[in-house]
């Protein structure tokens, strides 16, 4: 089967792919602009097949019937051809890599991150927009939350911590406004109005 239409996921015909004006899908009639690369024609490597362990031979920790080919450099468990993971010039077992122990943690790429700076900014601003009286809680909350989460890693692609700074500034302004209101009310009460 050929390349698929980006809209309806139906195959794009060969004669359309050869056209210089783009490939028209014969199913949904969308005009597709295709950029293909040599990886499209690369055959995937066949997976390694672990050998069966004979009587007296060491077996894999996770696959009792498969012959062990190495021991994990981290925990010492025996691993078969399928389980061995080459990592930093050493052989590791899948459990050690998954657990992120030792150096594996540094190599493990982040799949997601919590944006603490956005949470800090949303606390005083959204509460002000939605229902301002709860800023009595969110403003001091932001002032505590921001220093606590200051050193947490932010987004992978943006490095600046300006949201934290703006959040602190807004929270401070809200807090000052509340203090001023309290003083004002107290003075009015004292003067008998």
């Amino acid at each position, binding site marked *: 089967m050929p390349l698929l239409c980006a809209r309806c996921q139906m195959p794009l015909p060969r004669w359309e792919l050869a056209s210089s004006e783009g490939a028209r899908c014969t199913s949904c009639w*969308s005009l597709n602009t295709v950029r293909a690369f040599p990886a499209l024609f690369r055959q995937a490597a066949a997976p390694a097949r672990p050998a069966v362990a004979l009587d007296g031979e060491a077996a894999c920790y996770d696959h009792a019937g498969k012959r062990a080919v190495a021991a994990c450099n981290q925990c010492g468990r025996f691993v078969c051809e399928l389980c061995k993971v080459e990592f930093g010039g050493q052989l590791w077992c899948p459990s050690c890599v998954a657990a992120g122990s030792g150096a594996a943690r540094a190599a493990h790429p982040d799949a997601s991150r919590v944006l603490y700076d956005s949470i800090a900014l949303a606390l005083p601003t959204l509460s002000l927009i939605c229902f301002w009286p709860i800023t009595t809680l969110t403003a001091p909350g932001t002032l505590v939350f921001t220093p606590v989460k200051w050193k947490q890693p932010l987004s992978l692609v943006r490095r600046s911590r300006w949201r934290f700074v703006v959040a602190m500034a807004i929270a401070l302004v809200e807090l000052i406004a509340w203090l001023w209101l309290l003083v004002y009310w107290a003075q009015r009460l004292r003067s008998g109005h």
Partner: protein
Amino acid sequence: MEPTSVQPSTPYRKLPGRLRGIGYGSSVWMAPDHLLLVSSRMFREEYKRFYLRDIQAIVMAQRPRFPISTRSLAIAFAWLFPWVFWILLPAGFGFVWWAVAAVLTGSWLVFSFFFSCTCRLYTAVSNDPLPSLYRTWTARKFLDEVKPWIDDAQGSLDANWAEAVESREAGPAAAAPPTAPAAARPALRSHTTACLVLVVSLLAEAALGLLTLHYVSTASGWIFTCLSLVQISSAILILIERQRRILRAAMQRVAIASLVVQGLVYYVATTTAAFAPSGRFAGPSVFSRVMFPQSVLLREIAAGIYIVLALIGLTIILRPAAARPPDIIEN
């Protein structure tokens, strides 16, 4: 708890195209050896890496799309802003105001119908949409920028590559086994106590609002305030539960909608009261301003919206588990 140590930093460069909506977003970034697809939902970013050596094809298909971005919302808000000062504006302003609205809506419709597209990136094991590329000019700019980098990593194809493509399928093979066991993740709950509290408070506020449309006492005013506080607290709790992966996404949307409606109703009521002639809503209680005629209409609308939201919430809570679609964000 996330690790505080940051992994060795990769220099990322922003590529053309960005989707920014309320509570969600998407963008693609370039690293020396891979493309990074960043998808954000509320306060969490999810990353997917496509190594340049593995990318089989990028396909862009023209199709109508109608995304409501934060930019278009900002423009709509800027258009709406003069309404606050309607009384102070000259008589002929109304025509200009509506003409601007017609031009803005017309241009948005033209762009959405004729200059929009969907983009997908194919590798041997994945077939992913690139949501940040939804306008044709941005997608073309993206393709022009990315292609030389992928060519550098893989080399370039022959001119007659299309002849050979018939025998290969881009994207994951149909019979490929799943890469991760789906059962390993704990099942998300459809509702919690906070959801029940939100639905009940929505219904109670709607009922009280309709029962006290033409007479508001101090007691009912305080009950309104308490119900609003309960509603806001339960909505925030739902957002936290969703963030902690306890709850499915559906109730979160109801919570966000209820917060937005609460805010809008509050500020519209305050603005309407502020522009009303003094003394028109002077009454026996501090809540008399809600008796102002426009406020009665506003309360009717708000009660209607609360009933709709409560019914949606009830449907989510009462719907049997088997009938629910899988959570796309989670799975």
